């Protein structure tokens, strides 16, 4: 059984689904089910007395785990406080650590990110940091004790796919913790490529939740992650500059 292990917790699925962007809870539930995921992200926000039902009910009905995020935090202090609140609210010490540098790019702020990661690891959190596709930063996060590193394919919500496959491959080669490609995935081939490059898992939200048919895209992502993983394990053929016949020329007829 080719399971994913993060901090000793085992998963049959290598797809983590973000819940952001889903039009409604029914659509989200269908997408979660079709994706086969075992872990979904949620954000922490002020309670809305007018809200009809909670995303937690959807997650509970689907029987999947909760990974709270620190989305929207701009400083290490905000992110650390958000993680502590998430631990209180959801009774989990797992956190998708997100510290963004600005609201236009939503790119991680590496200095604040590393600072927050160090603090949270020190407080016993299982930290999964959303990071830039920077092999050095990924290494520093791993050294800080993060349970995984989650480099972006492209900025959040862009659907641009993997902008720097070379860096992503470098991160995968050096990391001893799982590398989870997080953000920027647009379609199934992007998810498959992430797995082929050596990622242990893929985390995506928008690509599914804002697709014309979220449940169908969720299924596509499930199959892509599975196919990409198999291709990685199977060992692809080397690229060659010239053709190499797959059919022998020996015994060819003289016509």
């Amino acid at each position: 059984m080719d399971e994913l292990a993060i901090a000793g917790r085992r998963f049959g699925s290598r797809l983590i689904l973000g819940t952001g962007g889903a039009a409604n809870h029914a659509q989200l539930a269908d997408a979660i089910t079709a994706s086969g995921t075992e872990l979904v992200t949620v954000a922490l926000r002020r309670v809305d007395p007018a809200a009809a039902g909670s995303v937690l009910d959807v997650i509970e009905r689907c029987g999947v785990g909760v990974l709270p995020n620190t989305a929207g935090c701009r400083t290490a202090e905000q992110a650390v406080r958000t993680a502590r609140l998430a631990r209180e609210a959801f009774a989990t010490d797992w956190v998708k650590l997100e510290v963004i540098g600005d609201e236009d790019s939503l790119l991680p702020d590496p200095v604040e990110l590393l600072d927050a990661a160090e603090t949270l690891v020190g407080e016993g959190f299982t930290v999964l940091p959303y990071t830039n596709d920077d092999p050095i930063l990924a290494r520093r996060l791993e050294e800080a004790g993060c349970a995984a590193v989650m480099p972006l394919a492209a900025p959040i919500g862009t659907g641009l796919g993997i902008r720097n496959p070379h860096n992503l491959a470098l991160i995968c080669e050096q990391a001893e913790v799982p590398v989870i490609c997080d953000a920027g995935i647009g379609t199934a081939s992007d998810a498959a490529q992430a797995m082929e490059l050596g990622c242990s898992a893929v985390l995506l939200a928008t690509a599914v939740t804002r697709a014309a048919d979220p449940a169908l895209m969720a299924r596509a992502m499930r199959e892509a992650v599975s196919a990409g993983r198999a291709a990685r394990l199977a060992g692809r053929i080397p690229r060659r500059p010239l053709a190499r016949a797959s059919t022998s020329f020996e015994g060819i007829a003289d016509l």
Partner: protein
Amino acid sequence: MKFALNGRAHDGPATVADAVRSALGAASAAASGRGIAVAVNGEVVPRSEWHRPLRDGDAVEVLTATQGG
């Protein structure tokens, strides 16, 4: 006594638990406190301390899960 609850000004004596009830309103499916976390002045107040009275000028945040990537 004045305090802020989820960014809005409130008046009168209250405990953390009062503030939580007020924030949740009528539709308190989460009245049990499941999936709820409270911060006063940025620091977590665990459920076991929700009986604590608020102080003048406190900023209370009552938070829960929402959809997010």
